[in-house]
């Protein structure tokens, strides 16, 4: 909406008000300049994103293998797509991914919103503590994954020690990364540690966007604090919460680096999220055609989610 009024403003000025100005502008016309400014970005994205994407689509219909470039390429049609969508291993990976995405998003949203709610009480020094809380999300996921493997070491790791201290179990009796039941939770814990601040920051913006007068009116109407929370705070912060949820959902759906360093998909394939399956197929088994098809399927899914995400962004923006 903003853009529309802005652009109509230009036309209005150029045409109606300042013909003199228009005549005096030397050099490039606005139209030429606009294209000169935008084209380099588009060209770069076409070269590094779109061309490779089209190539992937082509490869996904062939038997091409990157480590056997001399073998003649055979057109397979949609065979890979069919075999992927009926492959139980792929569905197992999708289930692992779903477990990871759902639990991280739920935990991060609940804790993140709770923290934002508390920080919004504006206690002394809240600015400094907020910055401290935000630190983990700025770090490299790979480096974070790597140093959490140290914390998760049985016996010597700090995490095991703390759990043992509070539960009375032996610190070497459980392996967060080596146990098929624990490892899916090990990656959830690290992701929650890292990304809860992200959800918190967006929720905080949502809470701060609620004007005071609404609460004042509610007080006048003698609405209880409980009622105010459910009828004002939560609904008005909801678009922001949704934004955070969607973004975390997309990011964790394609999660690779942190999980790759924590477990590498193991033990077995219990933490093999979709990106790890893809990496194994593409860069370890070198099944390029097959992995291209899987990449396209993942991309279409993310693209669909991104579409919803942008709609949510615009909704928040128009507030």
């Amino acid at each position, binding site marked *: 909406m903003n853009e529309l009024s802005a652009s109509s403003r230009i036309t209005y000025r150029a045409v109606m008000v300042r013909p003199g*100005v228009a005549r005096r502008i030397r050099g490039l016309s606005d139209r030429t300049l*606009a294209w000169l400014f935008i084209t380099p970005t588009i060209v770069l994205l076409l070269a590094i994103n779109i061309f490779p994407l089209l190539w992937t689509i082509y490869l996904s219909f062939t038997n091409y293998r990157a480590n056997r470039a001399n073998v003649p390429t055979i057109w397979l049609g949609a065979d890979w797509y069919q075999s992927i969508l009926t492959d139980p291993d792929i569905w197992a990976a999708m289930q692992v991914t779903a477990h990871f995405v759902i639990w991280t998003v739920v935990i991060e949203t609940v804790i993140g919103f709770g923290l934002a709610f*508390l920080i919004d009480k504006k206690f002394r020094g809240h600015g400094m503590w907020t910055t*401290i809380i935000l630190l983990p999300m700025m770090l*490299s996921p790979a480096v974070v994954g790597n*140093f959490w493997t140290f914390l998760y070491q049985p016996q010597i790791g700090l995490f095991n020690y703390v759990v043992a201290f509070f539960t009375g179990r032996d610190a070497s009796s459980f392996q967060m990364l080596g146990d098929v039941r624990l490892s899916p939770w090990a990656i959830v814990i690290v992701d929650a540690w890292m990304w809860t601040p992200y959800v918190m920051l967006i929720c905080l913006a949502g809470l701060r966007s609620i004007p005071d007068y609404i*609460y004042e009116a509610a007080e006048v109407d003698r609405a209880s604090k409980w009622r105010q929370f459910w009828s004002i705070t939560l609904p008005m912060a909801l678009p922001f919460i949704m934004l955070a949820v969607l973004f975390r959902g997309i990011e964790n759906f394609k999660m*690779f680096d942190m999980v790759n360093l924590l477990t590498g998909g193991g033990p077995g394939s219990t933490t093999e999220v979709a990106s790890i399956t893809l990496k194994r197929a593409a860069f370890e088994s070198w099944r390029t055609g097959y*992995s291209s098809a899987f*990449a396209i399927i993942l991309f279409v899914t993310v693209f669909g989610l991104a579409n919803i995400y942008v709609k949510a962004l615009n909704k928040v923006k128009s507030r």
Partner: protein
Amino acid sequence: MTSATTAHSVVEPSATTRRFAGSLVVLYAVITMIPLVWIMLTAFKSPDDAISYPPKVMFKPSLEGFCNLFTTRSRQTPEFIRSLGPPQGLCDSIARSRNMVVAGPSNYVPRFVNSLIIAFGSTVLAVALGTLSAYGFSRFRVPLKDDLLFFILSTRMMPPIAVAIPIYLMYRTVGLSDTRLGMILLYTSVNVSLAVWLLKGFIDEIPREYEEAAMIDGYTRFQAFVKVVLPQATTGIAATAIFCLIFAWNEYAFAVLLTSGNAQTAPPFIPIIIGEGGQDWPAVAAGTTLFLVPIVVFTVLLRKHLLRGITFGAVRK
């Protein structure tokens, strides 16, 4: 006056509420900092202290982790070590106390330098391209503007591994595999989407009357952009640059799949630092600490713009 105070206090949390909220937040902050503090402490431990049980909070600080990070060592017989001259420097004497001699520098410094070159190179490019495009999208009527902006954003949503498959093939064909230039171009293409979206928000906030006034004074549109808009957008450009820098600095998936030696950055290198008999944790921790310090500094610098950066400029406050 009293009525004004009460009207205000209705929505102001009470002192007790504040203290309660504050202590919970501080508790969370302290717990969340423990892993980070722990890794930084480990960087200054000796290998024995690092793997002791129970974990040691108090220990004698040692620079062995940093020495092991920066050097490679070889094991020698005590007779051979005794036959050598006096140790050269601190790291050499630490190594000799473990029956080893320093054999040469490790690969950490070259990897760190690669990280710096690739991060700064891609940031400069992405911000330059992003500023131009953002200005174009902000000020001119561009056909299919919303579709183009969505297209730009969507390129960032692709799963990195999915992008890496064709990039790997493409770079192999054109000879960009494992080169810094290849990584700079790749990171630029990822960062330019963030740069366009963020900078468009910043430029939208600069009143166009400034440029129009300059143009009445005889500036061309381009001169007005350079002399009026760019100075006004400095803060936004700086914040965007730091975001791009942090992304490129932290990136792992492309780096581990597309580089092996020449252009390898620090994130894929740090996890493979191994000593004799497994992972050399103090050295890994030292490498991690050095790698994280710039990010901590940048986070503090950026704190006012963080929200904007992580939401592609959608949430501004």
